[in-house]
């Protein structure tokens, strides 16, 4: 029987406790991994081990896939009517809500993000998403289509079946919710692979699915490394779908593996290097606030982060001054201090990566305008960093850093700015700040990105779709479109002649 991880918080922001099973969750049971090995879960504020969790292997993946297949054929899929699936999803949402602070505390402990942000953003938005998709469960409709009087044609939007959902460490609960909720709503069953860096909230979620009454095998969790568990899912011969959020690099590997195995369907939400264009007629103070949030929120660990901030020459100096002042006000520190904005980066690997980019920026001749250093001697804290005087070919301008590093870029030419903004292999998000509606909308319509924010940044809603153009991926999360990721259209053509 796997161990229970117990933890108690006695902090300014939160006092409470948790008791989490640390095993794999397969077919409604908590089990040890078949290899009996474990993974250390590290606290990024100090580099120390929080707990160990069971490590999954390819064998465990196969067991989970079989359990998910079986549940799909018997107790789930279309055997459970939409109204029943919806009812369980609403029940789960209510349970998550009851455990809001516990989820936020575990997320802050595991990922390093501020407790108050985890509560408001991660858990808050997750709840809306669970309820949104619970409402879709009995509304997955097809069409009847007229051709001739002696034919009856109709479509069914059938659930694909068992789905492997591989989610990242930047918003562990939130992005898992994005994927699991529509999958279950449509009737699919799920094998979730959380990031090995942030496995804990998924364990609480699994516990609550049992409490809500989901039949065994409908929701499974196999923790483990990407190159073991993720790879096993991608190569699995009978798994027909993977939903993934993570790096473009891994996205490619999944596509390759799919091509080499059974052509399993993929939806990929990948990286970004999103441009934020501030025109000279923007509301300057508002633009500063949004742009600052756009790059520094979640420690810059956001796929849609506005990491290339283009500022019109006329307002550049003033923008930079205000942006810098705002950045200096950001409180970096203990996730459980009540006014913390930014905690540590999620892991040593990420810390080194971001510091590496900072060094590369300096070496390439960009001006390090602010920050650029580690904070403290413990954990993975990096000071919010601003580079100026960059050129388009620099690594820090082309590549996704995934840290609190902003590149602020001056521009003069209105006609040219769209080309500059679009000059990226990525196309996840973009933003435009301008009070002129014509300028704002014509620019928005020309930007090659899956989300374009106008006079705001990072706004998300459960019912508005989100996803990438170009190498930022394909498929959409959120909104009605996400249902397409988990359904296959069957046309039934009946001859009445």
């Amino acid at each position: 029987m796997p161990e229970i991880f117990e933890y108690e918080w006695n902090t300014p922001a939160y006092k409470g406790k948790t008791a989490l099973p640390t095993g794999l969750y397969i077919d409604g049971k908590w089990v040890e991994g078949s290899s009996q090995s474990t993974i250390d879960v590290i606290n990024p504020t100090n580099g120390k081990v929080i707990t160990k969790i069971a490590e999954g292997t390819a064998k465990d993946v196969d067991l989970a896939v079989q359990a998910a297949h079986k549940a799909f054929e018997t107790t789930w899929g279309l055997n459970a009517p939409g109204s029943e699936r919806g009812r369980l999803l609403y029940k789960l949402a209510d349970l998550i809500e009851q455990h809001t602070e516990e989820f936020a505390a575990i997320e802050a402990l595991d990922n390093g993000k501020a407790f108050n942000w985890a509560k408001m953003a991660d858990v808050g938005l997750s709840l809306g998403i669970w309820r949104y998709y619970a409402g879709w469960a009995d509304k997955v409709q097809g069409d009847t289509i007229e051709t001739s009087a002696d034919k009856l044609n109709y479509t069914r939007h059938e659930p694909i079946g068992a789905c492997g959902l591989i989610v990242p460490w930047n918003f562990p609960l939130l992005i898992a919710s994005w994927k699991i909720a529509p999958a279950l709503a449509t009737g699919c069953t799920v094998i979730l692979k959380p990031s090995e860096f942030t496995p804990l909230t998924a364990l609480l979620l699994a516990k609550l699915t049992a409490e809500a009454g989901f039949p065994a095998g409908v929701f499974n969790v196999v923790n483990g490394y990407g190159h073991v568990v993720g790879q096993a899912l991608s190569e699995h011969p009978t798994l027909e779908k993977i939903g993934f959020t993570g790096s473009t690099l891994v996205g490619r590997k999944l596509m390759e593996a799919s091509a080499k195995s059974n052509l399993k369907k993929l939806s990929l939400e990948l990286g970004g290097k999103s441009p934020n264009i501030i025109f000279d007629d923007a509301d300057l103070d508002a633009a500063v606030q949004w742009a600052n949030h756009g790059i520094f929120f979640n420690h810059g660990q956001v796929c849609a982060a506005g990491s290339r901030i283009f500022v019109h020459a006329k307002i550049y100096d003033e923008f930079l001054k205000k942006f810098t002042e705002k950045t200096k006000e950001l409180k970096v520190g203990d996730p459980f201090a009540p006014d913390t904005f930014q905690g540590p980066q999620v892991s040593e690997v990420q810390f080194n990566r971001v510091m590496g980019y900072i060094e590369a920026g300096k070496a390439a001749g960009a001006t390090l305008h602010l920050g650029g250093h580690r904070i403290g001697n413990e954990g993975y804290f990096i000071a919010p960093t601003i580079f100026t005087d960059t050129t388009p070919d620099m690594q820090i301008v082309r590549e996704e850093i995934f840290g609190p590093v902003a590149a602020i870029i001056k521009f003069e030419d209105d006609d040219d700015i769209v080309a500059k903004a679009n000059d990226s292999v990525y196309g996840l998000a973009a933003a435009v700040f301008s009070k002129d509606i014509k300028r704002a909308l014509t620019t928005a319509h020309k930007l090659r990105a899956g989300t374009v924010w106008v006079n705001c940044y990072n706004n998300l809603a459960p019912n508005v779709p989100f996803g990438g153009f170009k190498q930022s991926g394909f498929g959409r999360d959120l909104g009605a479109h996400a249902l397409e990721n988990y359904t296959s259209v069957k046309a039934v053509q009946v001859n009445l002649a």
Partner: protein
Amino acid sequence: MAQPVEISIAAASRKVTVPTGLFINNEFVPSVDSNELIQCINPATEEVICSVVAGSVADIDRAVAAARAAYNTTWGKNVGPLERARLLHRLADLMERDRDTLAELESLNNGKPVRVARDFDIGDSIGCLRYYAGWADKITGQTIEVDNKTKLAFTRHDPIGVCGQIIPWNYPINMWAWKVAPALACGCTIVMKPSEITPLTALKLSELIVEAGFPPGVVNTVPSLGSVGGAALAAHPDVDKVAFTGSTVTGRKIMEAAAKSNLKKASPERALLAILEQVSLELGGKSPHIVFASADLEQAANWAALGILYNTGQDCTAGSRLFVQDTVYDKFISILVSKAKEIVVGNGFDEKTSGGPVVSKMQYDKVWSYIESGKQEGAKVILGGQKRAGKGFFVDPTIFTDVRPDMKIVRDEIFGPVLAVAKFSTEEEAVKLANDTSYGLGAGLHSKDADQCMRVSSALEAGTVWVNQYNLLYNNVPFGGKKQSGIGRELGSYALEEYTSVKAVHWNFGEKLDWPF
């Protein structure tokens, strides 16, 4: 008056408090200008349960004003979809909590069996509230390409506004839910006029509206005589939409009143420009039920019996005209009669009961007059047709055979457990007989021949066609009538169209208009 009364439900050893005032702005209040009361009768015992305030025309005005104020301030476009969804779910939770009490109150006032009210009427109503709660944040419009460089065109599905909702007495709670759920999900506010025969559960549910947290004025409940409150709503110049379920006769009056209402307000020259009140009507039926020779006769008999006996035949889709193919006629009829005999008609608080009394003296007299007319016009009674002695408006299952298409019992909606049965030879004949009605609400057919099922279901002129079943509805499948059975659809995503109004926005951000043109 307007004080709550305590009602003793002896059979359940329970006391229930029922508000008796008009529910306006989240409060129960007396009439503004009238002392009239509505007496609520228990149809199983013919005793008075209690009296409630009868709303006047002035009360309707007050309720409409409250609904309009709420629409402009705390509801309508001022409340987000997540909040509307949350409140509807909360209301569903409260109905679930109070399920037993509501079922008993429903049975007391309407007569239907308690267990049916609890499991079906209320169960389906809770499902309906949750179904539409799920739609609240999914009401999307379109963005439409016109000229990418200069224009953005899009639609918004706005809430239609203040809705007058007039519901019948046959499924008081269920019809309440069918109307309230989509209207609130879309952002509309409501003035609900429950039937004067069965106002009690609508008043009790109004308490739950307050407890759930809906702002004052979002839902208002005004029990009133149809000719007073219903007519006032239909003619009201500040009601954007009237939704009505009831008889075709009343439906016509509502349409007339709606068509005339704004024209009365506007000056004659502008009459043609006035916006007409939107109307959706779910009216009567004389639904045909066809049994073909290939049908599973045992099952078909179950469904056919259900079709005319469920809710004591007081169902707008009651399968009240049964057509049986000649080669299986005798066999089928004998099975059907034995099925009908198994149904216990009695007091709703008795667990054995499957059917209660009809709802009122007026309905009782009406149904019996049809039974008499059937006998007089020469139809043959093979079951029932005899009045009971004693108290209660009980009508036992009655089956007529050897009917002709011109008989009143074949043409008119009886709204009781009275079935008219005829024979047919060919499929063409069955379809012709089935469609020979001005109504078009429901229809059913039983056949194992798949092609026949498709042909006949296509040919039947009805808003709902049941194949190898009858009566069963789901919250996500639309329901409504063709021909004189009504306009518009309830349930499913289609109901949203009844409570939204499409606005097209044409936004110019690049075109300069040359002048003179």
